[in-house]
């Protein structure tokens, strides 16, 4: 449970975030069709990433049954991603749109989404005290964003463990990337620095069976 701007937020093991107050589920950085995007350049990694991401998404949607599902940008790895979706995968997205209202926030990878994609498209969304957008903004307050793919590293008993995580302070929550082929960036990386003072944040590391809350100073 994350208390954030008077709201109770439920982080999920999958990397999704549920907001009961608005019956809304958030996911970030799905990066659909990343595999086929790289394949165009001769890096022919397995093409099953969209399936895997959808498997995870259907599972979490099935569990929370939210009224609205919001994807916080970079839902597709590139502009042509929606066109390259396999038939089955496209049908699965259409089916999901029948169960829940889809809202796609645009990201730097997918600034334009095609009209035939089911659901609404927006650059950012205001939800009560919250602002949902893809890229973080320096002076924001009550912001939930994606973009940076946070991951945290700890060392315990001589072993290093690296996991995707939610990273949060009073003003902002970074969502972990949800996509099957999305890696993580260490929350201690320079890229995060502009967004907090003296690293005043906590992380919620995604384990296999539980989420672990840790202060930033124990992270490597």
């Amino acid at each position, binding site marked *: 449970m994350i208390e954030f701007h008077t709201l109770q937020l439920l982080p999920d093991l999958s990397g999704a975030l549920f907001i009961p107050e608005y019956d809304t589920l958030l996911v970030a950085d799905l990066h659909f069709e990343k595999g086929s995007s790289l394949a165009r350049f001769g890096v022919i990694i397995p093409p099953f990433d969209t399936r895997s991401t959808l498997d995870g998404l259907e599972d979490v949607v099935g569990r929370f049954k939210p009224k609205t599902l919001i994807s916080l940008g970079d839902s597709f790895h590139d502009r042509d991603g929606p066109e390259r979706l396999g038939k089955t995968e496209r049908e699965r997205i259409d089916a999901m749109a029948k169960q829940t209202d889809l809202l796609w926030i645009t990201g730097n990878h997918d600034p334009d989404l095609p009209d035939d994609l089911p659901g609404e498209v927006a650059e950012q969304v205001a939800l009560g005290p919250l602002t949902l957008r893809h890229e973080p903004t320096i002076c924001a307050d009550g912001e939930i964003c994606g973009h940076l793919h946070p991951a945290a590293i700890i060392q315990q008993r001589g072993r290093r463990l690296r996991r995707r995580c939610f990273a*949060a302070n009073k003003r902002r929550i970074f969502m972990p990337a949800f996509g099957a082929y999305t890696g993580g960036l260490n929350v201690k990386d320079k890229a995060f620095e502009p967004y907090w003072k003296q690293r005043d944040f906590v992380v919620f590391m995604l384990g296999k069976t539980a989420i672990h809350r840790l202060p930033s100073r124990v992270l490597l």
Partner: protein
Amino acid sequence: MLSESPSVNPQNDLPLVFERWFKSRGWRPRAHQLAILEQALDGQTCLLIAPTGGGKTLAGFLPSLVDLADNPCDGIHTLYISPLKALAVDIARNLEIPVKEMGLNIAIETRTGDTPQSKRQRQRYNPPDILITTPEQASLLIAHEGAAKFFGALKYIVLDELHALVSSKRGLLLSLALTRISSLAPCARRIGLSATVADPKLLCQWLGHGDNTAKLIMGAAGAVPEISILATREHLPWSGHSARYAVPEIYQLISNTGLALVFVNTRSQAERLFQDLWEANEDHLPIALHHGSLDVGQRRKVEAAMTEGKLRAVVCTSTLDLGIDWGDVDLVINVGAPKGSSRILQRIGRANHRLDEPSRAVFVPSNRFEVLECEAARVAAKLGEQDSEPPLGLKRDVLAQHILGCACGGDFDADELFAEITNSSPWFALSRKEFDAVLDFVATGGYALSSYEQYAKLKQTSDGRWRLSHPRLAQNYRLNSGTIVEEAMIKVRLVRAQKKRGNKPMSRFGGKVLGEVEEWFVEQLVSGDTFLFAGQILRFEGLQEMSAMVSRSFAQEPKVPSFYGGKFPLSTYLAGRVRKMLADPQQQKMLPEQVRDWLNIQRWKSILPKAADMLVETFPRANKHYLVCYPFDGRLAHQTLGMLATQRLERMGAQPLGFVANDYALAIWCVRDLSLAIETGRLDLTKLFDEDMLGDDLDAWLAQSSLMKRTFRDCAIISGLIERRTIRSEKSGRQMTVSSDLIYDVLRTHQPDHVLLKAAYDGAASGLIDVKRLGQMLARIKNHIVHKPLEAVSPLAVPVMLEIGRVPVYGEGDEALLAEAADSLIDEAMTLL
């Protein structure tokens, strides 16, 4: 390279100019040099096995030099392949001497990763007579469209230090390059040069082509080495890998001899010992350090100083195992475990610059078990027993790289390529089905979902031949080929210490490069940490771009103990000898008194197991119950056994908490009383150590294991699925990679029988988890488990028990560790949210 030889064949093929040259040097050609000349001029493929100092290198070149002296060649005449870059350069330099002295008009050049691009280009259209190169370069040379023309006139392929290549993926890739070269240059004869190996027949077969195996030529054996084990007056440590106790004695050995090579097993041991020796160095003897992480320039300086006779000792790792003689080494000191007989013989051979004089070596064990291992190795080395690894068999990832390489050289017919490859002994067992699966993988990824047809790397032309779909792929291939998958390395740069932590920027281009360390090691450092590197204690200042900035530190002890270096498992052969020694009081008489006492107390308190038996001890200690067993099968196999056995104990209700393994033993600790459980029959040791654990249990664990993911990464890189470097700009380079762990997870879910997963399983089974060795061990100990319940820890168990707390403890899931990290902080105020 050469010295006097006892026997000479008067009827030989040696031209007069060569005879004269030998004479002018006061030498006579050796029998094996003439034998190889005769065979090679006769068109035979041959393998010369001779000890170090036997004039092997010249023997390898002799047929080429003799042929070239009379018949100038248009195009490349001889391809000489050496496993080390540095060696190639030195061999070229050494070969130029006789060529010059005999006044032969022969062009000799090297081609390695360090050769400038312009020179490599020039070599392709204007090749030298003799090209000295590495296996990787050989693979690159066949991946060019002009390969057929380039190799057209080739007469000889000389493969040096073959024993060091054949058991690795490098050698396997080379075997494939050789099949190609043989097709391009059917007249080229192969000459192999090797140190003594366990089974020369396998090497002859490897070197041959199809049914035609190489003819074996044995050089005269060298004198039997003189080996002793350091008779220390100090207390012998129970465990650990620090020979610190023996530093004054090692120093004494160095001061009493001309040039000593001090071999250790890991880079961190080298750093530590070098540091300690300098502290003891009252006479300011020139002692140097040499290991793979040091800057190349620094290493070359040390090598040059050795050759010039300026040094008294060099502390080194396996980087000096191979190669020509860098100076006259008088004594080899091997610190730590010898690990294998062949390996240690190779090292001892470094002190063998005159074949008829024995080389001298002293073994310095760093703990009590190593005394046993040293004694076993001493006897084995004296008898000249070999335990070198057999050649590696087919690997799918290596095949994938070769297929793409062939396509870079021009279009090919699948039937022909398959026939060509299966001419090489490591690939005899390759089935057409497997070959086609790998070909499909190279072409389109081999995925069940055929969505990548349009992005295929290889496409079939109308006449059925396979060709590269885009020339860019050939460029990429050249950037990414090779089978050595290295950890990401970070340069270590020396800068001035920062006055205060924080804002003052470090010099942007500052700092002399001291060498490179693994990225993960640097990642765990925080600024202010001190560690040993390049023979000094350094203070970590921070990470800048891709460099670790360090300053000199005045600390007495480094804060961060060590960084990873090479680790070798104890060879099966030596392990067998150690087991026999434990069982035989007669053999123990050779051991130092401290060790004999230790074993005697073990015999009195517990059991010294028979050679065929595996002793299992159980005892309570500090509210936990321990099970310690002694298979002597190496740390990797023990770790795998530990992982699988704890799972079984879990199911048997013993509530295991963790385990730790070393090269000799495995210790597992549990909540439940194990002695009692075994006595009452609730715990059956036969079942615990049953071979069936290598079935489903192994698969289940392996699939989740990080070791498997590491192996998968290596396979993915070697097979070309993931690229190390791309020709696209650095900016977008980041976007072009996906972590191999993520690919592994996705692939395992959606296509568990994919060719690359098979390759990874294969690799892990023989590599990081050593399933093969574990399987042999479980078969061996079946019906030979001897259980001894004890009141307290036994003398034999002390070393492995001491490892607890020193090495990472396995068996506790990542989840538990995460929870622990969170729990230990649970009371701390969380004021942020």
